[in-house]
Structure formats: structure tokens, C-alpha cells
């Protein structure tokens, strides 16, 4: 998986493992079934086998050819269920203690983010609000509060393997922990109207220093903005 798309969160590896596991188990059965199918088609074509046999498939002798592979499939299913639930519980059902909390709000057709300011707390005066830009620090655990202003949106970050719908009227909490610096895509993965195709945001995963610089820069801009506003009045 990581050859196709990068991994940038702590749980991306779990999901990729699950995908590979299913690919191996499912792929084995798929190839086996297809191989048998094509073997039969070739072996029992009219030229090679002019007269068909009479097999009801109701006797135990012949039924076991269905049942044994079938039991094997069930065992594979159990494996898949186990790992699927394990991954799910880790990503969606547990909330590790966060280093910071951010707020994510979807609207037609932009993502609005509220970052905690220099004090590291959300809901204080120095919160930094951005549109279509999310700045996080690498190797820090983040909790996000996901909301929507109008219709359904889906907060999706492929490199994190993270996806969660934003539902109007609800606040959904989730978490992630970036593990790699860089600049990545944030998508909206749920159709949200005419501008669905432009509803992309940027994710900046930064080091601690870079993030601090950015926050300070934002703070300055905010102060300047306020000054301009006051001057206008």
C-alpha cells in the first residue's frame, strides 16, 4: 500500500495490514476458484468430453467438495472479522489522550479549522482559525471535533487512512497522530453539492518549530487585521 500512497499517521499501518491480509486471503480463494473454473471449462469442453456425467450433488460424497472448501472460507472469514474489528476499535472506538484538540467544520464548500493557539488550548482567545488549511505537528496526538454547517461532508485524509463523515447537528470526535512531515491533501468524500469537486483542503504536517513560527505569524496577522479594522471604524 505505501507504494501507492504514503502513510502519515500512526494507524495507517494497521489499515494497510488489514488490506494486505484480506488481499492475501481473498486473493487466494479468488485465484483458486477462477483456476478451477477455467480448468473445468477447458477440461470438460465438448470436444474433450462428449458425454456428460450424471452427478446430483446431493450425496455426501460429492457434497464434501463443496463443504470442505467452504469451511476453510469460514476460517478465513473469522480471521478477517477479528482483524477488522481490532483495527476499527483502535481507530474509531478508542480515544488516546490528546496533546491538542482541533475543531473541523465542513460547509458548502470549504473546510474550516480552528487550531489551538500558542497556549495549546482550544476555546481561548488566541485560537487560530483557517479555511482549507490544517496545520499539525508531527508525532503529536490530535483529537478533532467534527461538525457540519449545512449538508453531509466527509473529512478524509488519504495519507492518514482517515475518514469520517461530518453530519449537521452532530459533533463527532476522532483522533489521529501524524508521523511524517509534509504537505498532503484533505478531501471531502461525501457529495455535498455543486462545489463538491473543489472542496479540497491542504494538510501541513510540521515540526514543532515550524508550527510555532506559523502560529506566531498567524497571531501577527490577526493583530494587524484587528488594528486595520479598528482604524477603519
Amino acid at each position: 500500500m505505501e507504494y501507492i500512497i504514503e502513510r502519515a499517521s500512526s494507524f495507517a499501518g494497521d489499515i494497510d495490514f488489514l488490506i494486505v491480509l484480506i488481499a492475501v486471503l481473498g486473493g487466494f480463494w479468488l485465484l483458486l476458484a477462477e483456476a478451477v473454473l477455467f480448468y473445468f471449462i477447458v477440461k470438460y469442453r465438448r470436444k474433450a468430453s462428449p458425454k456428460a456425467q450424471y452427478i446430483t450433488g446431493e450425496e455426501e460424497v460429492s457434497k464434501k467438495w463443496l463443504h470442505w472448501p467452504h469451511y476453510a472460507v469460514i476460517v478465513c472469514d473469522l480471521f478477517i472479522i477479528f482483524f477488522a474489528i481490532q483495527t476499527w476499535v483502535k481507530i474509531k472506538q478508542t480515544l488516546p489522550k490528546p496533546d491538542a484538540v482541533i475543531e473541523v467544520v465542513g460547509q458548502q464548500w470549504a473546510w474550516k479549522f480552528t487550531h489551538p493557539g500558542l497556549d495549546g488550548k482550544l476555546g481561548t482567545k488566541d485560537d487560530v482559525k483557517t479555511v482549507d488549511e490544517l496545520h499539525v505537528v508531527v508525532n503529536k496526538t490530535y483529537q478533532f471535533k467534527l461538525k457540519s454547517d449545512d449538508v453531509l461532508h466527509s473529512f478524509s485524509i488519504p495519507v492518514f487512512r482517515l475518514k469520517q463523515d461530518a453530519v449537521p447537528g452532530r459533533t463527532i470526535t476522532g483522533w489521529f497522530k501524524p508521523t511524517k512531515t509534509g504537505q498532503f491533501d484533505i478531501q471531502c468524500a461525501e457529495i455535498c453539492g455543486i462545489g463538491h469537486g473543489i472542496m479540497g483542503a491542504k494538510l501541513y504536517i510540521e515540526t514543532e518549530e515550524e508550527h510555532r513560527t506559523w502560529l506566531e505569524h498567524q497571531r501577527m496577522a490577526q493583530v494587524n487585521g484587528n488594528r486595520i479594522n479598528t482604524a477603519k471604524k
Partner: protein
Amino acid sequence: MSHDHHEQSFFSKYLFSTDHKVIAMQYLFTGMFMALIGGFFAYGFRMQLAFPGIEVPGLGLVTPNLYNELVTNHGSIMIFWVAMPVLIAAFGNYLIPLMIGCDDMVFPRLNRLSYQIFLISAIVLIASFFVPGGGFSGAWTSYPPLSAQAKYNLTPLGAPMWLTAVALEFVAFLLGGINFITTLMNSRAPGMKMWDIPIVLWMIVIASIVFMASAGPLIAGAVMLLFDQIYHIGFFNPNKGGDPILWQHLFWFFGHPEVYVVLLPAMGIVAEVITVFARKKLFGYKTILYTTIATGTLSFFVWAHHQFVAGIDPRMANVFTITTILISIPVTEMCFAYIATLFGGSIELRTPMLFALAFLAEFLIGGVTGIFLGSSGSDIYFHDTYFVLAHFHYTFVPIAIISVFAGIYYWFPKMFGRHMNETLGKIHFWGTVIPFNLIFLPLFFLGLAGQHRRIYSYENFPELAKPYLQDLRILATVSLIVMLSFQVVFLFNFFYSIFKGKKAEKNPWRANTLEWAAASPPPHGNFPELPQVYRPPYEYSVPGRELDYWPQNEKA
């Protein structure tokens, strides 16, 4: 029975007929017509995806709104106005009375009414493309609040019309379903016991029952959504105390069983075709029947796997993961039984058989890729990506296209009394199946790369705008155009053969089931004398018999 040879006028014969065969043809042709529209829509948005911003020949510039409208209605049409009418209504209407050996459906006029309502629904849908604001563009799942409020979806007329069309279509199929179920239950030929019913009929009727049990909540939901759209009530509006998630449940409680509603008849058609062309008895008739019932039942317990990340309670996801993975058990058993049927057969690769085998081969891919989506952990990544899209096209195209072609090529001699051209059929087969794989295999890969659905242009997403991904999109589009153009071969073959094809005898495939005991094409009233049934339907190559088939109605 068919002693009344009075001349019927064109209208009473073709438009207001109560004959199940004519109604089946009406459904078939309406479905084929709608498939052309759906295919054209697919061409429109695939062109935009491969070559963003070009003037699509025959359609013009695809704006974001038009793009959404195209994908929405492509999905709706292909499922509600192609798969359903062709697989259930057309084949059900045609086959049920013939295969159980009676003269018509039990309620011929109800049957006609069902088609008329269906026709109106199709007309309402098509009309919705031309109203101010354009057709509905909120995806075939029609999630509120987007679908419920015109200020969000910008289609004040298109959305209610789409919803009305869907609701009417449901009513049509409820009426049709009641007719199918009662006909099969009550009107079987004397001597036809439970285990003598051809598997395709079992599957059509079980599908009708599943449809009936699942569509109810959505009909209620459609009324609620319609009131939301027209009167701004807010059943699904959180600002008025409603809950948008409720619609998702209503929709998928229907929507997932719906997959099996169309899958089962397709499996049934394939069962008929492979037994005839392999000259084999169906492997484990009862096993297949039980797995069918198990699939139908289990299909009600899996719906929320479409909503894993949609805001449902995460604890529920575990329940639905388990049920979803479990449903693979009966379905694999069914597929294994089909493959086992080929064992020891004498396979003749005529066009219907090619399509039937292609169904099995392709559907297996669709089934296995479904596991990625049914297991909650990996669905976090795959939800609403092209992986999902490729997966369900690997199930729906075999179901609604490939198996339907198998059925049409197989029953064509019965329907029109003539054969379709075999060479053209084979050209059509390879021209359909190879491009089909070339369309959707790239899409699997695009899905793995994180490409999400219903985006008119990926230029806004740098990770997805890479040139090699664009090459894959172009490959898919070109394959689609190739596939669509090969359908011309089919259409030519189909209409040419209706009038000029080689004349067919009564039972050209040497098959067992009762429809082959009627003349080709069967007259009004079907059988000169209603048949009796003496044995199960798949007695091929019985040892000690000179002929390798043994019709159900032949006295020992």
C-alpha cells in the same frame, strides 16, 4: 384456452396487452432504452474525467452541476430502470408462467397496471432532466439535507421529480412482485412440486419477497423526504429536530437487500444456462436453494456497512462487520456449487454459455473485493473511493449486463422464434467482457490511490492529479467507449434476428424446462394443452437414456 382468435388492434395487442409475454417485452425494451440513456450518461462523465474541460461530443461542456446530475442519474437508471425491470420484471414475467406451465400470470390486469406505473415513473424521471434547474444531482443515495433542501442542491424541481419517479417505480414492482409470488405459489402445473421448480423462478420470487420486505420503510421514507422537499417539514433536518442519519438507515435497509434482489435472478439465469450448455444436472439443487434463502435472509442484517464512517455509532459497526462477512458464506457456497456443476460436463461454448461463464468469473472478483468494504477497519480508507465504485460495478455489470445478455441470447429463440447470429454474438461477447475489465481494473487502482467519488475534476487535488493516474482514467474512458460501441453489434444482431434470423424450432437447446414445450414464440395462452410435470428440471445426461435431456413434461 387460445381458441379466441379474434383480431386485436395494435393498441390492445402491444400497449394495453395483459399477456405476460407482451408485458415482459415492454419491460425488456423499456429497460434497454433506459440502458442506452444510462450508458450515454456514463460516456458523458467518463469523458469529462479523462479529458477535463473538453466539449464532450454530443453533450457539450460538462459543468460540475451537469457532472453530478449525470452520475446521479446514471446510478439511479442502471439500478431502478435497467437492472430491476429487466432482471425481475422482464424475465420474471416471461419465464414464470411458461416455466410453471400455465397460460398467464394470475392477475394479468394487475400486471399491466404494474408496467404502466413503471412507464410513468420512467417518463417522470426523463422529464426531470429538462425542468429548470436540471435533474437531481445529489447522488443516487439521495442523502439529506443535500437532497431535502433546494438551497443546497439547487434543483428545486429535479429532486422531487426524481424521488417521485423512484417511489412510483417501487409501487410498480410491489404490484409486480405480488403477482410473481402468488403465481409461483398457486399456479404451478399439476405434478410440479417444490423441488421441481426451476431455480431461476425460485430466485426471482425470493428476490421479490426480499424486495417487498425491504422497500416498505423506504417508501415511507420517500414520502417523508418528499414532504421535506416540498413543504420544508424537516423530518431529516437537524435544525428542526430531524435526523439525517435516519434517511441513511431507511435507504440502506432497502439499498443493501436490493443488491441481492438483482443478484438472485441473475444467478438463476446463469443456473439455467450452464446446466443446458454443460448438459449437467445442477450440482446440489437443494444446497443452492437453501443458500439462496440464507442469502436473502442475511441480506437484511448487513445494511449499515454502507454507513461505517457516516456518523453511526461505532459500536454498531462491529455488529454489521460480522454479519457482512458472514453473508459471504452462503454466497461462496452458491458460487462453488455453480463451478461444481461444470465438473464432468460436456461444455458447449455458445454465446449464452460464454456470458454465463463470464458472469461467474467476473462476479467472483466483485464478491471478493466486497470483503475489503465489509470489514469496518479497511472500509475507513475505502469508503466513498473508486475502490467501492469498481467493486460494485464488478457485481452490477455481471448482474445487470452480462447475465442479462446470457438470458437474452438463451431465450431469444423462444421469445421471437428465431436465432441470433452466433458469430456476431461472440464478437459482442469479447467486445463487452474485455473492455469491461479494462474499465474497472484501473478504477480499483485509482481507489487504492485515494481517489474519491463524484468529483468532476481531480485538478484540485494534487495527490490525485498525477499524470499516471490521469493515464489510468483515460484508459478507463477509452475502454468504456469501446465497450459501448460493441453494443451496436448487439443491437444490430438483436433487431436483425427478430425479423431475419434463422428460424428456431421448439426446443433448439434441447433443454428440460417447460417453456421449451411451448411453440416458439408461444402464442397467446402459451401451451396448446397445459403440461403436466413428471420430474425435476435438471435431468441432463441421465444414465441409461439415449437422449441427454429429459423434459419435465415428458411422460416416463
